[in-house]
């Protein structure tokens, strides 16, 4: 199927496919089982240029555009949703925000190290008492001379504990509510920053989720990302970009799962024929294939908008909405086709079933995608 890729995009996709087969596929089940951050693998991702795929060349990025990035996320997701999540939190949430809002000094300080894999990025937004939305913020940043002092607790921080740089959201003006929320760049080894615990999850295990405590963390004034009060805008934009990549994750996971179910369906003989020959099974596969194709087109379209610096909030929300609608259903059907075997913990189908849910849940979104889409229509 042709998707009007450039030669470069095709090469990047092919390379990501081969790398995934060779280096991620053999480890994927183990990463899920141990739920440990795969540090060596992350280093190999950096060597492939994946960590800075869409970042500018002047900061050592591959400058290959957001569509190329979506393509590698899709390929990696075919083997491991967890590894794709690690990359996406690093690139589309943390690095993307620094590149979009950062000063020249901030970019020079962090982006080359983020491209080389020297430091991993994380996005610390949600708080324990405020799920699933951004919620009531209690992490505060008080100005004290030339420094800000951070205090409070963040929850569900993906890459938490493994990250070298956190984009932390804190209130600089608690009286103003979320309008008083600002973003800060905080090093992983900053004194006062500690990991309270890692959180066990249903899936995406290996993409570590942690609760992070900020206890009088002193950071220089130059750590402020953008301006005071810009927090909400930074979150919205990063979540929209990352949401497009999450659409690519759903495409990758669902595609791999569907291929697995189709293969199983041809091998599994019941009533003297492969079950894939039954119209009931074919209907499920056809539905999945159609939905995956539609989602893929929407993802590529939104990714092209991002790389051409066009408005993309509505298209990103559509990707999110459609991915949530079709992603889990595809996996419910895949496990159904594979029956008792697919339900086994040892089979890829059950891992994909658990992983895809983690991609389509509302990851602390500021707005429901429906609201974003409606807003674009009505305003």
């Amino acid at each position, binding site marked *: 199927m042709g998707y009007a890729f450039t030669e470069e995009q095709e090469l990047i996709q092919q390379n990501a496919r081969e790398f995934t087969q060779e280096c991620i596929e053999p480890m994927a089940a183990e990463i899920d089982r141990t739920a440990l951050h795969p540090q060596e693998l992350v280093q190999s991702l950096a060597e492939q240029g994946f960590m800075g795929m869409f970042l500018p060349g002047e900061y050592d990025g591959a400058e290959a555009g957001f569509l190329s990035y979506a393509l590698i996320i899709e390929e990696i997701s075919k083997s491991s949703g967890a590894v794709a999540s690690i990359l996406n939190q690093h690139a589309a949430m943390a690095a993307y925000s620094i590149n979009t809002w950062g000063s020249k000094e901030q970019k020079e300080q962090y982006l080359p190290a983020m491209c080389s894999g020297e430091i991993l990025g994380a996005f610390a937004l*949600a708080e324990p*008492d*405020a*799920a*699933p*939305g*951004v*919620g*009531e913020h209690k992490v505060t940043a008080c100005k004290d001379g030339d420094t800000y002092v951070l205090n409070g607790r963040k*929850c*569900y921080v993906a890459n938490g504990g493994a990250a070298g740089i956190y984009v932390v959201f804190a209130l600089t003006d608690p009286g103003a*509510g*979320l309008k008083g929320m600002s973003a800060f760049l905080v090093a992983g080894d900053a004194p006062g920053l500690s990991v309270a615990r890692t*959180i*066990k*999850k*249903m*899936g995406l295990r290996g993409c570590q*989720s942690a609760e992070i405590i900020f206890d009088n963390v002193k950071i220089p004034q130059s750590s402020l990302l953008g301006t005071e009060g810009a927090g909400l805008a930074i979150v919205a934009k990063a979540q929209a970009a990352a949401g497009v990549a999450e659409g690519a994750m759903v495409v990758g996971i669902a595609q791999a799962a569907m291929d697995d179910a189709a293969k199983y369906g041809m091998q599994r*003989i*019941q*009533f003297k024929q492969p079950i894939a020959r*039954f119209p*009931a*099974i074919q209907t499920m596969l056809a539905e999945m294939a159609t939905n995956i194709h539609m989602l893929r087109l929407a993802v590529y379209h939104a990714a092209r908008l991002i790389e051409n610096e066009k408005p993309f909030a509505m298209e990103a929300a559509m990707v999110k909405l459609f991915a*949530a609608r079709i992603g*889990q259903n595809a996996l*419910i059907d895949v*496990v*159904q086709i594979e*029956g*008792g075997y697919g*339900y*086994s*913990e*040892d089979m890829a189908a*059950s891992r994909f*079933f*658990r992983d895809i*849910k*983690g991609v*389509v*849940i*509302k*990851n*602390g979104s*500021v707005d*429901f995608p*429906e*609201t974003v889409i409606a807003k674009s229509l009505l305003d």
Partner: protein
Amino acid sequence: MLDLTITPEQQKIQQLARAFTAQHIIPVDREWDERGGFHEFILAENKKVGLNCMAVPVEYGGPGYDSVTQSLVAEEWGYGCAAFATTLSGNGLSSYPLAIAGTEEQKKLYYSRLVNGGMGGFALTEPGAGSDAGSCTTVAKLDGDEWVINGTKCFATTCGYASIMVVFASTDLDKGVKGLSAFIVEKEREGVVVGAEEHKMGIRSSNTVELRLKNVRVPRTHLLGKEGDGMKIAMKTLDMARPIVASMSVGVARRALDEAIQFAKTYLDVNGKPIGRHQAVAFKLADMATQVEAARQLVRNALRLKDVGMPYTKEAAMAKTFCTDTAMRVTSEAVELMGQYGYSKDSIVEKLMRDAKVTQIYEGTNQVQRIVISGLLLNS
């Protein structure tokens, strides 16, 4: 909520099961999901309150509850833990072949084990015979006054712990489905070997094993019904079991709904309002609750037909499909609504979602149910 459509006696048992679930199951549901071991101690408690073998008739020492009562209890178990509910409803299921085709002697043998706290097993599925039960390759041959059974069963629920089982084997391979027969096999018979245990995505503390039968000899009188009656017995057994699985699934869905409601009331949005005040969330809860209620009424209707002796095969299959699909949908929506918290193991809804998936698969996949329903629609 008081349900006025059930009798005071049924309400009493429902309350008993609800209290049992709250006291013995819910406090340990997460722990047993993670550990994955068999929940024997809950069974022991369950026996004390008299809910361990609900299907056994009064004349054999059981409580002899009607179908509606059994389904009320199954819903409460499902509310607590689908793995535990699977063990207990599987126990009931294993005894249905006796109610369908058992002689006086056979009933005494089988029921007495259950009444005394032993677990029952039901071994039908084989590696090559799932939905297609007629492809069974386990064989039983008559040798003098004994049947000699050879073969391998898989996905056998509770069979690692069962004291007595109903095992399906072909007495005439050439006849396919019509050569299938059902036998009572005690655990202690020589040659009964419990094989590998399945590691499942959900219902993890339910015991699912491979069962190997190597020259297992049972008396001639252990054949249920006649030779070749196996498929008929299996189908009637599953007819009886479907509303129970359906009820259990209603319980799973109801738990997810309750968790989601609690969350929607407690968690605050960006403006400090509980998220339940958002119409998008509130309507979602309304839809979830409507589905749970519809599911419950569908199974209730099938059981009323059964209890007055009317045909209920189609309604039971409809209930199984709808209730288990509802459990899958509602648990999935609960996780989505609860976001990162719902996806984490700090909350129970991710377990409910993993558990719900199997209900669409076992005791006749929902595709098999549709074969049953459409068959009755088109061939009557």
